[in-house]
């Protein structure tokens, strides 16, 4: 097995171990119902994390993910109140996400500002915009939202793959194709692996940077749409801290924050591991919610140290 699949294998292994451990500890845990719920409940974070994966593989970072989720929800709720069909407002918001991300990419490239800082400003801008639009939760009452949440596929064993989860899986499939079978995908890996070499080899840096952040914006806006449908409301504080969850999912999924190494598919398992921990703690019942945070941090620690020693020092990252 090639070394580059090692982190992904470990991620999937950890997911399986956690899942089996849950099955041994609690009756009814080992079922498609639990899997379906984890996929459905975490779909919006995983979708956003897929976009973040591209950004991180390119060596950048996107902190505006959570605010984008909140902003998309608030705007969609207000458009709904104004009588718009969700199927019209949703594509519009996804387009907005792409445009906003492209703008962030332009600023990063042209002004040579670190992605961390500019996406931080974007975080403030979008969250502030949420508060300016309204301060309370606004329900989305359109019947389509109810229909959407009733849609889905039943899984063998009593499970249910909700429409959110299906959207997420389709988005993942598209992302895998983009990452591994397009010129742009190779450019992302090249830029993240070694930007000066990529430039010398003729990778169009500006175009690639803009596309990367546009893609990130598109995915976080899609995550926002799914979240708005999932909660059937728009709330200005929605998605707070989701950028961290997204980054954590990407890291747990085996992508290196130094850029150049990682798989989009790993992010799915990274996000599912986070969801699985929350589910396990919920199943226990006696554990405090604080354990979710601590367990998340502990798991991040284990993964990061593991990457550092298993992968970080190996052939394909000799720079450090």
């Amino acid at each position: 097995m090639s070394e580059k699949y090692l982190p992904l294998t470990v991620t999937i292994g950890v997911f399986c171990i956690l899942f089996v451990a849950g099955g041994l500890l609690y009756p009814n845990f080992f079922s498609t119902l639990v899997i379906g719920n984890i996929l459905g409940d975490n779909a919006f974070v995983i979708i956003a994390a897929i976009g973040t994966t591209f950004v991180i593989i390119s060596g950048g970072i996107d902190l505006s993910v959570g605010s984008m989720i909140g902003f998309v929800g608030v705007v969609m709720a207000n458009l709904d109140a104004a009588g718009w069909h969700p199927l019209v407002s949703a594509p519009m918001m996804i387009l907005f996400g792409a445009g906003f991300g492209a703008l962030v990419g332009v600023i990063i490239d042209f002004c040579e500002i670190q992605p961390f800082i500019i996406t931080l400003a974007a975080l403030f801008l979008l969250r502030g915009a949420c508060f300016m639009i309204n301060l309370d939760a606004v329900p989305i009452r359109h019947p389509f939202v109810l229909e959407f949440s009733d849609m889905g596929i039943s899984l063998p064993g009593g499970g249910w793959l909700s429409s959110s989860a299906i959207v997420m899986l389709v988005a993942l499939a598209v992302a895998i194709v983009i990452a591994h079978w397009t010129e742009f995908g190779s450019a992302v890996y090249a830029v993240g692996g070694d930007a000066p070499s990529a430039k010398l080899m003729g990778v169009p840096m500006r175009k690639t940077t803009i596309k990367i952040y546009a893609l990130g914006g598109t995915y976080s806006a899609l995550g926002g749409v799914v979240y708005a449908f999932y909660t059937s409301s728009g709330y200005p504080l929605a998605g707070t801290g989701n950028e961290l969850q997204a980054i954590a999912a990407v890291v747990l999924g085996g992508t290196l924050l130094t850029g150049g190494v990682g798989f989009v598919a790993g992010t799915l398992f990274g996000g599912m591991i986070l969801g699985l921990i929350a589910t396990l703690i919920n199943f226990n019942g006696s554990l405090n919610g604080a354990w979710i945070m601590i367990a998340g941090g502990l798991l991040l620690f284990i993964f990061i140290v593991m990457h550092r020693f298993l992968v970080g020092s190996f052939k394909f990252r000799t720079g450090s």
Partner: protein
Amino acid sequence: MNTQTPSPKPEQPATRLPSSGGAPAGRWLALIRHRLVWPLMALALVLIVDALISPGFFNVRIVQGRLFGNVIDIFYRAMPTAMVALGMAVVIGTKGIDLSVGSIIAICGAIIAWRMHQGDSHFVILLMALAAGLACGLWNGFLVSVLEIQPIIATLILMVSGRGIGLMVNLLYGGTNPSFTSPLLQGLSVGSLGLIPTRLIVGAVIFFLLWLLVRRTAFGLFLESVGGNAKSARLAGVNARFVLLSAYLISGFLAATAGVILTADTHTSDPVSVASNIELDAILAVVIGGGSLAGGRIFLDGTIIGVLVIQALTTSILTSGLPPEYNLVVKAVVVLIVLLLQSSNMRAAVVSVLVRRKA
């Protein structure tokens, strides 16, 4: 892949230019190239707008034996963020970042409330809180310097779990009522010494000590050298591990100071929401102050100006009568403008447009 060009160092301003001997134009040029000009202009702009929209903004009067007024208020409220931002400036100077400062503040607050309930001496509690900050710094520093993990992820671990740890500490004594009163801690936080609020004195003393450390000792030079080029620094005999570790210790300690002030201010421990987004404000302050995330430079004075810009914005939005909801958007827009002005590409583009128009 995107590195900001570092501003010129204060020791070597642009006076090397041939035209800058004594000619007014040269002096002007040297002045606008000084690294503090942009952050100071940003601060001046905010204050001028304040003066225009609310007359009497700069009035300072004495109420109940202490100074009172918007300007004092800006300093007063900026102090905790300033402490965090100074630590952040040191860490960023070593090419690192510390995302865990908010969590450290939460942990310190929880420990203070917990020990208060156990009835420890308040001075011991103060030392415990600061020690907790150092311990957190030690953890971050260990990950970054010994395990050589990228700072942004290394500190992400404590950022993700720290507030959970604070909640667990609250649970140690039931956690139903984490409020407390302490003349010592509240004296440090909300009290005043003569006319001046105590926390400003604490802040000034810490700033001065840190300035001595960074600007007047070899250690300060090591901090910047590790950030500038870790490999060369190591080859030159700098113990890079120890230097990196100390940077995170400093950041943890200063975050703990902010934690004591903030916790004593609210009389309670609230790990979930205390100091939320303070790491972002601190990083912004460092960047507005001219620091680059690429490392190698520590601008303590610029960082303080950066914090004041952010706080002045917040205070002016509150005094101007705009709804507080506008706070974040205005902050984002001002930060964007400052960032764009600091970018040399952007400045060149603006200048070329202006020149073309004149011609």
